[in-house]
């Protein structure tokens, strides 16, 4: 135990000696992103060698269709995890939002009014998470497992076993559902991917270049110190959960339009994909560490790997294994070195008692 403390204490001293001033976590994160770039290059190479279709332009379009709306949820979840909390209810909110639109559409509402209500539902659901976590001090993992079940349950209550549009319903406006079939004019980018990229730039600027972003990092690293430093911890956390709810609701609308239909179980289980993307992007589950660049790279890796594997007919099951292994690697690699050191220390120390 004592040697462990010693190595931990020694490490920052060594590293700051090399590059004056640069905080060691930033350099650590940078190394992770470099690793992600290498992995991305390897995936792209793998895809273009193995699949004749991988380099076709339409690959980018389908990647966007499959990944864009999931990636949009990954951004606010990144912020939430940065502050040391977690939001597992995102995929259920996606489902509740899409089901809300479906329900209102079934009852003859105007599509834009239905969207507005769905986004409002997202804000209210996010606020419920936020109030329970930030103001009542409840653990976010338990709260959002609860709302995961609750939101999906409400979606089920709304739609039951219906698929909307059902018999007798109008079809969704084709101008809107086209986003699932057509790319942006003059490119192969899907609408959902474009929206993700724009949001990623905004999120990146907020996280890395604003006081609000620094506050989130501070909350994640030292919540009490952040509180004493005058950061409005509760308000920020509440705001982030609301943001997460609204963007998940938005992702629900996108997913629904891409599919041009909705059932209550739309997007079930995606919360784990979202968390996997964020963590593989190098965001620490304990908060305070991570970059938007990492998350974007992670989206690119997961998305293109999925495309490549699907094109060469690798089953969804094997893709599951790949996702799981990526996630395990993302925590094992950064901790592996330290674990090795511990084992070595223990082996080195063991002979001592016998000698003495």
């Amino acid at each position, binding site marked *: 135990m004592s040697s462990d403390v010693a190595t931990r204490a020694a490490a920052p001293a060594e590293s700051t000696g090399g590059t004056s001033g640069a905080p060691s976590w930033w350099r650590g994160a940078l190394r992770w992103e470099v690793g992600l770039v290498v992995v991305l290059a390897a995936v792209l190479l793998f895809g273009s060698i193995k699949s004749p279709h991988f380099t076709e332009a339409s690959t980018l379009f389908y990647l966007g269709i499959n990944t864009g709306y999931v990636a949009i949820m990954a951004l606010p979840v990144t912020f939430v995890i940065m502050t040391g909390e977690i939001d597992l209810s995102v995929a259920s909110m996606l489902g509740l939002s899409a089901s809300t639109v479906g329900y209102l559409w079934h009852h003859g509402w105007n599509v834009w009014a239905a969207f507005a209500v769905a986004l409002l539902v997202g804000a209210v659901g996010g606020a419920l998470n936020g109030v329970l976590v930030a103001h009542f001090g409840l653990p976010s*993992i338990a*709260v959002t497992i609860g709302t*995961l079940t609750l939101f999906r349950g409400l979606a089920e209550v709304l739609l039951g076993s219906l698929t909307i549009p059902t018999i007798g319903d109008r079809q969704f406006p084709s101008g809107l559902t086209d986003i699932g079939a057509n790319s942006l004019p003059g490119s192969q980018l899907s609408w959902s991917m474009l929206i993700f990229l724009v949001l990623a730039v905004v999120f990146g600027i907020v996280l890395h270049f604003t006081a609000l972003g620094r506050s989130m990092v501070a909350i994640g690293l030292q919540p009490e110190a952040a509180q004493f430093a005058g950061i409005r911890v509760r308000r920020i956390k509440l705001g982030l959960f609301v943001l997460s709810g609204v963007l998940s609701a938005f992702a629900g609308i996108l997913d629904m339009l891409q599919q041009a239909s909705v059932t209550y179980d739309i997007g079930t*289980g995606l919360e784990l994909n979202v968390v996997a993307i964020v963590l593989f992007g190098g965001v620490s589950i304990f908060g305070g560490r991570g970059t938007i660049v990492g998350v974007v790279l992670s989206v690119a890796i997961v998305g293109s790997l999925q495309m490549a594997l699907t094109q060469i007919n690798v089953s969804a099951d094997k893709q*599951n294994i790949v*996702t*799981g292994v990526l996630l395990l690697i993302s*925590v*094992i690699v950064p901790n592996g070195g330290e674990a090795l050191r511990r084992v070595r220390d223990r082996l080195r120390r063991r002979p001592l008692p016998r000698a003495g």
Partner: protein
Amino acid sequence: MTAVPGRTGGGPAVLALLRAREVGLLVLIALVVLITTVKNSHFVEANSVQQMLSGAALFALLGVGETLVIITRNVDLSVGSVLGLAAYVVGYLFKYHHIPVWSGFLIGTLIGAAAGLVNGLIVTVLRVPSLVVTLGMLYVIRGIDGVIVNGDQIDPASIPNSFTAVGYRTFLGVPWLAIIVAVVVAGAGYAMRSFRSSRELYAIGSNPDAAALAGIPIGRRVFSAFLISGTLAGLAGSLFLALHTQINNNGGIGYELIVVTAVVVGGVAIFGGSGSVVGAALGALLLNVINQALVAARISAFWNQAIAGALLLTAIAFDRWLSLRVTRSLQSAEGAHHEL
């Protein structure tokens, strides 16, 4: 009922409050049963009660392992996948290799133990967060399951009758399945109150640093918790196959969150240090009773999930309120003491 999970040095009133969780759950279960029976007298018929017990039994069994893990401030999200893998492999061996019935239980349990071993090793040796590790394992094991299953389906005809008997036969009106799980819960409940090593799990969850300073072998204890959780998930896989008599690649999908819900509703603190396996088992039973009550009361089953979610939120809010009250009463008691 002497020991109260994870808390020492509280006054008797505090003990009573915390212990009341199991009583509270029993009262709640009784209330649901009573109200539903008034609406539909068929609800308490033997058949429906047996269904309730069998359905809850699997989650209660998973809940025992999950409780041990959560008490140490960890979580095991891989239990649903482990259950699915064990159930299919056992079914496969029955169908294509005609293994003896007893080995069906043994092999399922061993598969679970292997998964628990991997989880435990990664979490304790590499010291990485269990949430991420078991989330990764959820995917990996489900993927391996899918590769092995490869579109196959095990039908009731392939499974020996004496194996599925565990699922449908009863003793004095109680399903064997429920009896097996009750024995495990009782054994684990006793161990968690009486054994030194189990008490150390609470110490680890309450305050890991203090536990380390007290000389508790944290790594070994946490490892054991994961090993037991995996083992019980494997056994639950065998029992799942016996109960449902058929399996493909989607057995146990999403169970991990139901189990965590049951455990937390049962009074186990998600950040470790307190809770009991009996409470967790009662939490599982309550969820299942509500489930069946909706059907009996002819309320749309679509309400099921919404109610489970609301129940979980209520449970954690209640726990928070309770702990604040306890703290306040302890503080005021201390204040009174000083005045004397």
